[in-house]
């Protein structure tokens, strides 16, 4: 079984971002970029499946600018066998990316498309679901545990009321939640080896995917600044204030 893993290049989660003064987006000049943390978790799970003998090959796929090669090399250093970069310089929305995964799946015939549940930059959280629909396969989203039994996957999902355990036929699309695993540390020698692993490049027209984005970002703005608090003298004043502001 092959596993396709989506790798998105996003702003590093530890970096403080800044909204551009004209509201046209987030300033990314000399900002550290990383693999989307949920994609890292998806990759880790795919690698563990391969190490457990449940899969033969892990293929990392990224859709974006040429710079995404950095993140694909990280994926290869973590242990992916090979990588595919679908090069496109403009940002793409989930529906186009889902079409890309389906187009690649048609060629690679993976048993699982394993994706992060969302990307930390746009927080859309749609690609896995759209991919499953377009691919016409089952989806098991927000996985916190995955067990492969023959041609089926048992997936545990953390939901509001507890754990939801579902079983899907493979091939399927699975999206990784935060508690699925803790990704491994990349080893220095593996970073070196990753430089020699195969990284294929293709683009949307080669895959026959139309690039039409359906959404338009009108404005990006930082969250409003928090107003300073103030001290109250006693409980009575506190309750009075809360009443006044309609909080109780």
């Amino acid at each position, binding site marked *: 079984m092959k596993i396709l893993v989506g790798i998105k290049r996003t702003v*590093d989660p*530890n*970096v*403080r971002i*800044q909204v551009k*003064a004209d509201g046209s987006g987030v300033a990314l*000049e*000399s*900002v*550290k970029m990383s693999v989307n943390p949920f994609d890292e978790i998806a990759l880790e799970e795919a690698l563990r499946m391969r190490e457990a003998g449940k899969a033969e090959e892990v293929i990392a796929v990224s859709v974006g600018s040429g710079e995404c090669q950095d993140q694909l090399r990280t994926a290869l250093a973590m242990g992916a066998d090979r990588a595919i970069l679908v090069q496109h310089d403009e940002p793409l929305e989930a529906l186009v990316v889902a079409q890309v995964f389906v187009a690649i799946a048609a060629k690679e015939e993976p048993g699982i498309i394993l994706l992060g549940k969302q990307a930390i930059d746009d927080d859309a959280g749609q690609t896995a679901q759209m991919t499953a629909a377009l691919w016409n396969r089952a989806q098991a989203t927000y996985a916190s545990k995955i067990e492969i039994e023959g041609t089926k996957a048992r997936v545990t999902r953390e939901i509001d009321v507890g754990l939801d355990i579902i079983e899907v036929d493979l091939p399927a699309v699975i999206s990784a939640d935060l508690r699925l695993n*803790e*990704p*491994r*540390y*990349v*080893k*220095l*020698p593996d*970073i*070196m080896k990753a430089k020699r692993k195969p990284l294929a490049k293709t683009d949307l027209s080669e895959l026959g995917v139309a690039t039409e984005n359906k959404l338009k970002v009108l404005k990006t703005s930082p969250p409003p600044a928090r107003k300073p608090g103030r001290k109250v003298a006693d409980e009575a004043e506190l309750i009075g204030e809360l009443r006044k502001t309609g909080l109780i």
Partner: protein
Amino acid sequence: MSEAIERDVMEYDVVVVGAGPAGLACAIRLKQLDPERSVCLLEKGSYVGAHILAGAVIEPEPLDELLPGWRDNPPPICIPVEKDDFYYLTRNKQFRSPMAPPQMNNHGNYIVSLSAMCQWLAPQAEDLGVEIYPGFAAAETLFNEQGQVMGVRTGDMGIAKDGSSKSGYTPGVDIHAKATVFAEGCRGSLTKALIRHFELDKDVAPQTYGIGLKELWQLPEGRVQPGLVQHTLGWPLPADTYGGGFIYHLDQDRVALGFVIGLDYPDPNLFPFECFQQLKHHPLLHDFLEGGTIISSGTRTLVEGGWQSMPIMEMPGALMVGDCGGTLNVPKIKGTHTAMRSAMIAAEHLHENALNPVGYDSMLRSSAVSRELKKVRNIRPGFRWGLWGGLVNAGFETVTMGLSPWTLTNHADHTATKKLSEYHGSTTDYRDRDLAPKDRLASVYYAATEHDEDQPVHLHVLDPEVCISTCVEEYNNPCTRFCPANVYEMVEDQNYERHLQINSANCVHCKTCDIKDPYGIITWVTPEGGAGPNYQNL
């Protein structure tokens, strides 16, 4: 750790520790001289530039030499200096000096973000074939059987706070090299131990340091004058303390501002973070900043010992370049050009001597770097006579071009702190503050510092008992003030007993504690690779 850990070994011709301007310049030069040579560059920051913080006004000559075409493809922040202003501040007033000191004439120099500049240098080094590994800290020096340095070991990853292995435990790798170049910057943790081990400083004066705090601000349109360089002396520092502020006007309505204080300050109650914030609230700056937003902040120490404190820069199998050896020119308040030059000299020496470091020290000492440092050697130590005595001495040394037959010595900074009972000059007439950040924790947020909480504390306090038994009486626990990130806190437990709490996850890797703690019992070691601040454009 048991001996049974199997470690990967990687072999290189040269391993360079630290991807600052010196480490990058050395690696680039080594590859330019011989493209076949294998060069590995380790960086503890999560990316190149993440731990780099400087003013910074730089002299461009070493860049011209290293990368002749750089002016066509300059670093992202690179503004020619247009004007130098020099101020003396009292609490409520400012006096602009009719002329700037000659060392501070910045005509032909550039204001850069050193962090962004290193980020810009890294891909150029990689294009030459340098293998750069950010996120990997050199945690230990490796020695061969003859006692020569034979490389470094990177830090283990995945060790829990109690020292046990976590599930993802990954042992560090051993990097063996024919020559090891230490370019760790000020108070490098490995170089500190090596200087002691090989007694490299036994014939020189103790090293002295400064602490430099910096912030980057975005201001409303029209306030910033790109290329304007302003320096201040005086308030809020007492005359017995060396230091001053800087305000560098960048492009796109950004301004870099900061405050440097000599760590030989005597006042045990001095609070460097507060001093910097007070400077921002001086009439010279308050209205200028008001309405702007802080983008990032950080702190780093700098070496101030100069020529007379420079240790022997070579040792068997290894050598030092840049500020871990102390090549900064204090009167110019510039170290990038000398650091890069020392690194290029090291690369050229290694190239010509089959990677043998022997002879590099004398080559460096007969170079322009050393001549430059020697000429100004007496200026910084003259400030032991206070601000005015220091300025008179600086004037004399400048006019005589450093030809005076004497060399003033330095004293170790941690011995310079006076006891509470001996010091009575603490400044207390501080202003109320309204500009961000309100405290050190807010400031740490703008440094974007990050450490996995479940890892061993990387600040080793030899005997925490001293904090409660002696230090509180003698010095009032100065670590709780000199640390710019509020790492050290004295807290009470349930039984109302005080003890030292180390919030190591806040650490911004400035090394002040390792230098200034009055008993010399704090040792800074590398935390897990990739941890620490994530500076942007500092």
